[in-house]
């Protein structure tokens, strides 16, 4: 029980720090909007075609914009040796990690909540049809993004080339989760509900979240403390 209280404290602290300055959040949202506009030049947005690549398109926006937030997650603690102080506190490293994952999840979700309606309006896609199922897929995919992103943010926090290394390492590892999220999102936007045809990918996504969350919780002590 105490563990979850610690997680909540860390998540609360991170969110409060971010909401005071909003530097990562504003940058991520602005970047997401810029990519949304740029894509209209890459593809001629014909409404029928948009349905076919909407999942892939949205997840590229989310994961690219997410990298900005994730990069800051641990790096923010470097100033004034906050990271060392956090690690020296009686809070276990796994709780610090999970708290940061929860905070990042909330920030990425905020970016998605802003980007989705804009996508719907700009590309004439009606997103209201699957108001229950789409958030489920988004939540599972965003959790994968937050867990792997926070883990590698911790892994690269002391490197000189942090900003470059994080995306290079994170995207290949995220591929299974991204494939599943893209397929499911495209299906939902195209009018096909979750079910027999794509339940496999829902399982892949769920399993990915479970396996990598456990693995990250197990190894975070080694990464942060040594």
């Amino acid at each position: 029980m105490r563990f979850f209280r610690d997680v909540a404290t860390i998540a609360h602290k991170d969110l409060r720090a971010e909401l005071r300055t909003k530097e990562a959040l504003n940058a991520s949202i602005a970047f997401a909007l810029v990519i949304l506009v740029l894509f209209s030049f890459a593809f001629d947005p014909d409404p029928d075609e948009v349905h076919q690549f909407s999942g892939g398109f949205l997840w590229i926006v989310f994961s690219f914009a997410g990298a900005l937030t994730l990069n800051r997650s641990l790096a923010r603690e470097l100033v004034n040796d906050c990271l060392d102080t956090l690690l020296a506190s009686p809070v276990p490293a796994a709780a610090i990690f999970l708290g940061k994952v929860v905070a990042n999840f909330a920030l990425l979700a905020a970016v998605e909540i802003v980007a989705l309606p804009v996508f719907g309006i700009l590309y004439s896609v009606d997103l209201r049809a699957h108001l229950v199922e789409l958030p489920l897929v988004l939540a599972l995919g965003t959790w994968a993004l937050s867990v792997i992103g926070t883990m590698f943010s911790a892994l690269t926090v002391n490197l000189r080339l942090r900003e470059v290394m994080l995306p290079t390492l994170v995207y290949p590892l995220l591929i299974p989760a991204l494939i599943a999220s893209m397929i499911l999102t495209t299906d939902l936007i195209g009018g096909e509900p979750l079910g027999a045809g794509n339940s496999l990918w829902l399982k892949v996504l769920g399993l990915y979240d479970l396996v990598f969350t456990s693995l990250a919780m197990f190894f975070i002590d080694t990464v942060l403390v040594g």
Partner: protein
Amino acid sequence: MRDKILFALLAVAAGLLAWDLYKIFMVIPDEVNQGYIFRIVYIHVPTIFTAFTGFFVALVASAWYLASGNLAADAFAAGVTEVSLAFATIVLVTGSIWGRIIWGVWWVWDYRLTSMLVCWLTYAGYLMLRRAIEEPIQRARLSAVFSIFGCLEVLFVYKSIEWFRTQHPGPVLSIRNGGGMSPGMESTIYWNWLAFLCLATAITMVRMRQEEMAREIDALRRMAHSY
């Protein structure tokens, strides 16, 4: 002793490779549908086996490092990963050559090809991460964790092949219940795998020694600076 093992491994690899090449080009007949080019399977498949064996050994060595803190395990993991990545490159190149002739294109986004490419990118990331960290203990620790993550992720991607439509030829070897190859043709694949394994082990040994020397030089340099 180490040199003797190294030369013995190289001799075995050379002998086996010469014998296999003779069989591949002189003894084994053309395949009915694909003709001459099918022979590339004797390089393609054993290199995949060697690369995956290597990545698995790297996983074990990384776990061994995390459990023991022995830097030799880290040097071993780094050496094995580098050599396996070279073999993975051969897999991609030979596959592309075969694809160009049989499919008419160098590359298709089939899931098996994609997963091999993702695997390649993941382990290339491992080597980049190693380059980016200077302090040996920190480098060993972080890259060991990365290797374990990478190996599991590759398993994830690889499983997705079997769940999704695929353009790549289905399994032909009897161990995967494919059974499309005649026994005379199939055995050469395994002999070649053995040859490649000997070669990979020999190169890894050389690479490990380099890694140990680099660490020794680094330690000496630090010592010299501290005076």
